[in-house]
């Protein structure tokens, strides 16, 4: 029988089935306990109903065996769920290295998407099926949350940092995209569509999409790098005022206070916006902050450019 309205979400990513299996497993366990408790309560209430006014219940105080039984069975079951859920969460949290990167910027109340070739769209995200896709997300104002129920993924988009989300869509189709973290007046209007296409159709769509001239993010980043005269200090030459950026992304960096940090997206972002928060050992704290001067989108483009730099540095680029 087919109902005229859905009771289950579409299943359109590689992890969706895994999430659903865990969901139905816990549902089965829960249903068992709900039925057990409800049945016992109803049976006891009927069977041991008060027959006459002065009657009192049996003089039973408890049983250690019973207490231990109903402590350990739920404990074992919940630990099973914990490990299962944790394992799944790790896979959901770690994007595969070969993932294609799409930039997402949330602002009240729209989603701005930029594809690797520079194609932009708003409140729509076209993606190819069967390919690992990583979203790098930032917010221009308050906290948002990028939620695609059909893929069973969701991640907050937090101002002041970059967050990531990955998925591998399996089935072409059009799916809901929601902002799932309350963000003000038009929160429920901050929605859109995720359109999963066959890879060839996606390529065709990219070449035919209209959304302004498509400048790839790394190239746009290079232009920003030049426009802001970043190369004056980050020249990549020995003795330069700023550190060499070639091969920096993903490398370990030693700071003036002796700490070592990994130069991930959030480190690079902070070093542009608030450079003096973490100063690289051997350099003076002289870089001006770009907070308020660069948009999240521009920061993402700069990051794309920095990541494209080879260890030799910009001079060789």
């Amino acid at each position: 029988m087919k109902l005229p309205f859905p009771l289950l979400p579409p299943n359109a990513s590689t992890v969706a089935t895994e999430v659903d299996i865990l969901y139905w497993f816990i549902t089965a366990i829960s249903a068992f306990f709900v039925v057990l408790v409800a049945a016992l309560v109803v049976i006891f209430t009927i069977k041991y109903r008060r027959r006459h006014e002065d009657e009192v219940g049996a003089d039973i105080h408890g049983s250690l065996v019973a207490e231990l039984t109903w402590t350990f069975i739920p404990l074992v079951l919940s630990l099973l769920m914990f490990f299962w859920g944790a394992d799944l969460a790790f896979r959901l949290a770690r994007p595969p290295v070969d993932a294609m990167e799409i930039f997402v910027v949330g602002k009240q109340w729209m989603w701005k998407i930029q594809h690797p070739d520079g194609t932009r769209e708003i409140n729509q995200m076209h993606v190819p099926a069967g390919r690992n896709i990583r979203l790098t997300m930032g917010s221009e104002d308050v906290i948002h949350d990028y939620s695609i129920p059909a893929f069973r993924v969701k991640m907050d988009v937090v101002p002041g940092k970059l967050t990531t989300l990955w998925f591998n869509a399996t089935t072409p189709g059009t799916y809901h995209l929601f902002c799932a973290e309350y963000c003000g007046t038009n929160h429920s209007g901050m929605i859109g569509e995720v359109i999963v296409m066959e890879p060839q159709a996606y390529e065709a769509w990219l070449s035919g999409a209209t959304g302004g001239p498509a400048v790839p993010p790394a190239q746009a980043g290079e232009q920003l790098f030049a426009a802001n005269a970043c190369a004056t200090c980050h020249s990549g030459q020995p003795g330069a005022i700023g550190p060499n950026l070639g091969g920096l992304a993903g490398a370990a960096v030693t700071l003036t206070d002796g700490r070592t940090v990994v130069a991930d997206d959030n480190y690079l972002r902070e070093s542009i916006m608030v450079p003096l928060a973490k100063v690289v050992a051997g350099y003076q704290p002289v870089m001006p902050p770009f907070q308020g001067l660069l948009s999240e989108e521009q920061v993402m483009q700069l990051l794309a450019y920095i990541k494209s730099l080879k260890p030799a540095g910009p001079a060789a680029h």
Partner: protein
Amino acid sequence: MSDVSQPRNSYLDAPYGLASWLLTKDHKRIAMLYLISITIFFAIGGLFAAGIRLELLTPQGDLWTSDLYNKLFTLHGVVMIFFFLVPSIPATLGNFLMPIMIGAKDLAFPRINLISWYLYIIGATVTLAAVFTGGLDTGWTFYTPYSSVSSQTAVTTAAIGVFITGFSSILTGLNFIVTTHRMRAPGMTWFRLPLFVWSNYATSLVMILGTPVIAITVLLVAAERALGLGFFDPARGGDPVLFQHLFWFYSHPAVYIMILPGMGVISELVAAMARKQVFGYSFVAFSSLAIAILGFLVWGHHLFVSSQSIYAGLVFSIITMLVAIPSAVKTFNWTATLYRGSISWQSPTWWVVGFMGLFTIGGLTGVFLGTLGLNIHLTDTYFVVAHFHYIMVGGAIMAYMGGLHFWWPKMTGRMFSDAGSKTSAVLVFVGFNLTFFPQFVLGFMGMPRRYHAYPDEWQVLNVLSSCGAGVLALGYALPLVYLTYSLFRGAAAPANPWGAKGLEWTIPSPPTTYNFEAEVRVDEPAYNYKSTREVHVG
């Protein structure tokens, strides 16, 4: 004590006059002041809920503007949580019963008890003032930076209102703890305490440890807005997620402030209605403390998708699993208590049975949300909304209603309509499931919380939910009628209408001002129905 109508020198009658009520230091009168106030706020919160459910009848968001809708769900949450649920059982039933149950004449600090009520009223007034000076649209969670830099509504006023109300809660908790430690009658040892006292004690611990943190947190938000300080604003170097940590450090334990007293009520009702010792008394007692303590270590499960480290998520997830265990233990112990009991079919039992079903579902759906991999899909959806309503409405309010009916004869000296109470319990149970069960389904399909408009294909379930809310409202309105009626026309209540054990049933209904005419000495455990049987059967 016999079943004759009691002499009219009760706490209700002497002394007379409005001033004698507004300046009273009698814990029973203060309980009644709270009862009236929280009933008003329950009605106000219910009206806001009606606004939400009416809007969601249609997918388009066509009844209210988005701004008004956002204010409706925000105020529904703020009013229901801070002004109804948190004070509900502790401040009314707890206030009334705690001293009597331990054989004391009053709480340790009667004047502070009255101050608590005034703080509550002042805090509530300030918050309501926010409603009329721009409203509040941040959600009850006040998440930054929306609340601190973006919202155009009266956030500062509301935050100050919540801040003031917090001190009401702190002082009540403080009073209960000192009362439990220092005011017990001779012979009333810790393991003779009724379980309602244990659970209120655990609740009070959470109140005094958690509430100050929310107080300072909302104060920081108010300061950020009013004075331009930048604690949580990323544009000024602040970290908005720090707010979430501080907020949930209180607000997760606050869930236990709401449900623990309800668990205590259920322990009392199960024992009295089955006339049987609570199965595994010490396990039930200690599980309250376990919940109170573990409850402080799970706040991060609200932040699984907030960009919190996944390793932090792991720790919070496993502790969340652990906190489910004491709740399961309690549920099984209540069920076992019914085994071979002498179970009355009077109306308090009906509320207990309803609680057992709803609370079990509410607790188990919490396990879904505590599971890391599943939480990612379910968080911020209607699944969460359904889950916490099963705990707070299906659990806490069901227990509150059961307790209110059970002790109503003691509090007012009047019997109420048992048929009315049963009808109400059934209406609430049916209406509640009809309202909130479809929301689990909607949540799994991904319908986000706090949405003014939603995709068309989800309309059927939303309409079901709204219809259920109508039934639910009827179920809650009915007691208002027959309980009020009972005040004027109800039969005089005997001292012990249920044939229950406990010090409160040894004194007249309603009690006199100082509860006990003579000093009390306790020489038997709680729920000692065996002795009664020896009298009747042996």
